[in-house]
């Protein structure tokens, strides 16, 4: 209250960046943002706390905020009795192999679009961008029939390959590669370097920032992806984390407390990435408008 009673500075735009006493508007804004932050965080915190409750406590009325006894056994059981490690490894395999593949083939295509003149270049590039217009949800049924006729249902490759070519990845890397000077590539060519060598040794290292952005997004997409692995992984042994959580939830042989513990563990890697890569993620989204 003390702060509010100070002489309020004039409500101008310059006062916002200056370090003057907080105005009523500033306080109201901070309070509002705090309330909204609570609406966002409270459910997540509740969820994390619930993952430490045993089944009796989970169905206790009224529900308690803190677990009476911290049931860390929810977590140990997820490993011991249930297949958490399996789902986790499936997610790791699909995410890492798919991201590596995406980086490789997207950057190859991006390089061709950015640094070569060839017949049909613009046509192919427009075609690549046009792929954004056909989201997976639209072709769910035919793509499932195609993948299943190729025998890729219930395989890692079936989860990895079809979504590896991303139009947005090609676009981001190509835009960045445009800024690499042609002279650099020319002089390497004069020195007798082969095309793949130039690509691998000169172009890729220079395009590292763009590759990093695409890698971050690819990891995010793949780790959280649900609908695609849901189509492909029909055998429980191949479930990625989201598929496992969605399908085990509500099934009698996996108790609720275990699903909660598994869920909490599944979001930790992504949260870590967010903490350390926040700026790249937010900038990437602001610049490209993609999710």
């Amino acid at each position, binding site marked *: 209250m003390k702060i509010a009673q100070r002489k309020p500075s004039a409500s101008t735009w310059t006062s916002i960046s200056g370090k003057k006493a907080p105005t009523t508007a500033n306080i109201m804004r901070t309070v509002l943002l705090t309330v909204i932050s609570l609406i966002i965080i409270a459910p997540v915190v509740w969820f994390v706390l619930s993952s430490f409750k045993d089944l009796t406590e989970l169905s206790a009325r009224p*529900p308690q905020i803190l677990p009476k006894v911290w049931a860390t056994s929810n977590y140990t059981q997820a490993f011991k009795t249930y297949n958490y490690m399996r789902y986790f490894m499936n997610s790791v395999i699909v995410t890492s192999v798919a991201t590596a593949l995406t980086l490789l083939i997207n950057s190859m295509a991006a390089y061709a679009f950015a640094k070569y003149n060839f017949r049909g270049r613009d046509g192919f590039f427009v075609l*690549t961008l046009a792929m954004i217009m056909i989201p997976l949800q639209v072709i769910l*049924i035919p793509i499932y029939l195609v993948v299943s006729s190729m025998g890729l249902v219930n395989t890692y490759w079936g989860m990895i390959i079809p979504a590896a070519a991303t139009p947005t990845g090609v676009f981001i890397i190509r835009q960045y590669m445009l800024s690499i000077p042609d002279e650099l590539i020319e002089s390497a060519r004069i020195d007798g370097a082969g095309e793949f060598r130039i690509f691998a040794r000169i172009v890729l290292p220079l395009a590292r920032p763009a590759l990093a952005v695409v890698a971050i997004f690819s990891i995010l997409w793949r780790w959280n992806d649900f609908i695609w692995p849901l189509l492909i992984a029909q055998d429980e042994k191949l479930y990625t984390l989201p598929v496992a959580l969605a399908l085990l939830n509500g099934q009698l042989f996996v108790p609720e407390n275990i*699903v909660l513990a598994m869920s909490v563990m599944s979001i930790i890697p992504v*949260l870590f990435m967010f903490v350390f890569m926040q700026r790249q993620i937010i900038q990437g989204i602001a610049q490209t*408008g993609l999710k």
Partner: protein
Amino acid sequence: MPYVFILPNMAIFGTFIIYPALRGFWISFQESSDGRNFKYVGTANFKAILTDPTIASVARNTATYVISYVIISTVLALTLSIIVNQQTFLKGMYRAILFLPVMLSPVVVGLIWNQVLDRKVGPLNQLLQALGGGSPGWLVEPKLGMIAVIFVGVWVHIGFYSIILLAGLQGIDKSVLEAAAMDGATRWQSTRLIILPLLKPTTLIIVILSTIHGFQSFDFIYTLTGGGPLGATTLIVQYIYDRAFQTPIQYGLGSAAGVILFLIIFAFTALNFLVGRKKEAV
């Protein structure tokens, strides 16, 4: 040589997007319940979509969801981004919190709100009771189910739209606002008369993007309500999914629904390109 570089990417596009898209278009004029035997049925699937009462309810649900989701998301994201942009105290922290749900797996988001909205043991109803309210069956009653799904949809994505708007806000020349303030404009006047008009192209993009996302919604709903109660939150994507994996399996009908969804999303994506280009030109 360049063809070798684009080959892997293009081969995947051809095999897993272009070919399925064409095949889907063709299947939408056929019917099959096993994926092997197809029977040509002409436009019967599209006619069924226009007349079938089950599909009509899916269409109604999708329309209700998308319209509410787009309006609420846009207004809220606009408000939040302007507020966050003016904030100096802990601005980065608020921005990060706002963005947090975007990072979460939608499947987990569904599970989180499943806990929070539980009729009997959920903390929300506990809070409502403490405040003297009843204990509504958020995930049990059809109308409330839709409200819950819309709310959670906004909760997940609001940070995403706010970040894009924040970038738009940072592009606004500060000297214009300073000049306005010097001329005695209040903050509200500056917001209404300068910021909102300048933010119009970005806002339009948010409207378009949220419409596209709205039509594509599936994953968090799958774990939140599973399309229930009584089909009240079954949207078009789940309908398509169910036609392939739930009895009665009807690949043709599902593909036809896919074609219609494609036309809608195509129109909005094209619009997004046009607006985006115009915005760059300005």
